[in-house]
């Protein structure tokens, strides 16, 4: 459904990222504390000026009352303080909840802050098991599916139904890496070719290791307030123009349709709330946990006809110099993927580009951005449309 609360009344006024990639010197809690404070300072504020905190728990350092623990660490007693979890969709769903909380008078200015350290604070096997534990404990996990395997099931179904090829999936990974090569902070910066992806190690057919997102450490936070309070800050406020959600199922074996996701519903709602269309989007920041997820979002969010996502991606339209720049930081495939916070970096990159602060990779005339996040196995979806006034 259309979310009335985000119809241009709220703005992002501050943002921060931690170091990203391999960050062994700070725990997830410490990263979350750091980006919370840095985002508030980026907004030209101190914690005294902020009365709300929303966080997501960390796999690598679970805390029973996570948001309270982060606030306590800072000696801060916000009026509104809550931990939410909808997996990878937590990012923008938390942001929507922050706007709704402000609209309801529960707070005036809220920090949404997330961090995790799957790379340095868990072993590879722990990270694999904890992520695959989203599978149904009785009717999926006993068969040994990994998270890549879940997405491989989606990929195979799309190939069978629409003739999509492994090279078309791979084009998404090549595009993200081409952008990451321009970003000094990206975890992986060496350009890759289609053949590099296709010849990389098989993980769960048809997916290879370069079809899969990274395992990283990192955190990011943003500050949201009502737009009329946003104009005195040091940066151009970024307006939330539209938002939508879609929730289809939790477990992939219960999906009614393996090849069309609830991104259809979330996208429609966000476009309706903003009065904009896919053609109006200058920049796309989509959820590239695995290359098939990226391809299906492109279709379901209306950038091409259903089934034509492979041709669309393979055309090069998303590469540097193309007309639909996508994941210009490198995405979770090449920039940073610390688990649930992954889409926060798509958001911070969108803000950076819309402020005009992206340095050598700065694009011209980015007035609107579509950010998308999803949780589970393409289960729940959140679409967020941002705008900036010139």
């Amino acid at each position: 459904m259309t979310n009335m609360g985000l119809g241009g009344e709220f703005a992002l006024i501050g943002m921060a990222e931690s170091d990203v990639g391999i960050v062994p010197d700070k725990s997830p809690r410490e990263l979350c504390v750091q980006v919370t404070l840095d985002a508030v300072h980026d907004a030209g504020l101190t914690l005294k000026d902020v009365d709300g905190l929303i966080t997501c728990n960390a796999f690598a350092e679970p805390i029973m009352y996570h948001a309270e623990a982060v606030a306590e660490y800072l000696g801060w007693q916000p009026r509104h303080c809550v931990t939410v979890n909808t997996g990878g969709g937590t990012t923008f769903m938390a942001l929507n909840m922050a706007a709704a909380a402000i609209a309801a008078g529960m707070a005036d200015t809220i920090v949404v802050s997330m961090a995790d350290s799957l790379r340095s604070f868990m072993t590879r096997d722990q990270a694999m098991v904890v992520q695959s534990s989203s599978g149904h404990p009785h009717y999926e996990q006993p068969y040994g599916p990994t998270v890549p395997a879940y997405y491989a099931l989606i990929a195979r179904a799309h190939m069978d139904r629409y003739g999509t090829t492994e090279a078309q999936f791979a084009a998404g990974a090549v595009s993200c890496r081409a952008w990451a090569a321009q970003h000094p902070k990206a975890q992986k910066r060496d350009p890759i070719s289609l053949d590099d992806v296709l010849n990389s190690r098989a993980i769960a057919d048809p997916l290879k290791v370069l079809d899969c997102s990274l395992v990283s450490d990192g955190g990011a936070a943003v500050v949201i307030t009502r737009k009329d309070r946003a104009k005195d800050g040091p940066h151009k406020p970024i307006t939330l123009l539209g938002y939508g959600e879609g929730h289809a199922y939790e477990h992939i074996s219960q999906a009614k349709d393996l090849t069309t996701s609830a991104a259809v519903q979330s996208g429609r709602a966000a476009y309706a709330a903003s009065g904009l269309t896919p053609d109006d989007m200058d920049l796309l920041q989509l959820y590239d946990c695995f290359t098939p997820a990226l391809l299906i979002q492109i279709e379901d969010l209306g950038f091409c006809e259903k089934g034509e996502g492979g041709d669309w991606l393979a055309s090069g339209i998303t590469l540097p110099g193309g007309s639909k720049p996508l994941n210009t930081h490198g995405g979770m495939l090449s920039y940073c993927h610390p688990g649930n916070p992954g889409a926060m970096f798509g958001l911070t990159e969108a803000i950076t580009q819309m402020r005009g602060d992206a340095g050598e990779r700065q694009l011209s005339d980015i007035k609107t951005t579509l950010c998308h996040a999803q949780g589970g196995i393409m289960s729940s979806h959140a679409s967020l449309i941002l705008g900036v006034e010139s």
Partner: protein
Amino acid sequence: MAKPVPQPTPTEQPFYDACARGELALQHCQNCGHRLFYPRTHCDQCHSTDLVWRTASGAGRIASYTVVRRGVSADFEAPYIVALIDLEEGPRMMSQIIEADPEALAVGLSVTVDFAAWSEEITLPVFRLHPALAGDHP
């Protein structure tokens, strides 16, 4: 770590009891006729609690599949085949396809149920390619 083994609730127990007998059992809704999987207290179409267990044919088709090359833990020896199976009665379930040549697999192929012990107490349904398709694979 060991392979995850279901710990059935009372609602689910008849499903696992049937597996131990070598039968695949599904709940049928007496109110709307819907056939359910996984087992539930309420029909996921009409929310009736008037559900009865019936033995399924064990025939199905591959809705999708993947050959897992890196196992989820040391207890799963890769490669192995994880698949989504559309049962003849309607419901879809995740399972493994056993003793099949990955090259012989395709979406839409017919499979038939078999059963494998996961622990002393728990037997789970797995699937094989239909005998007419299975070729010479042992």
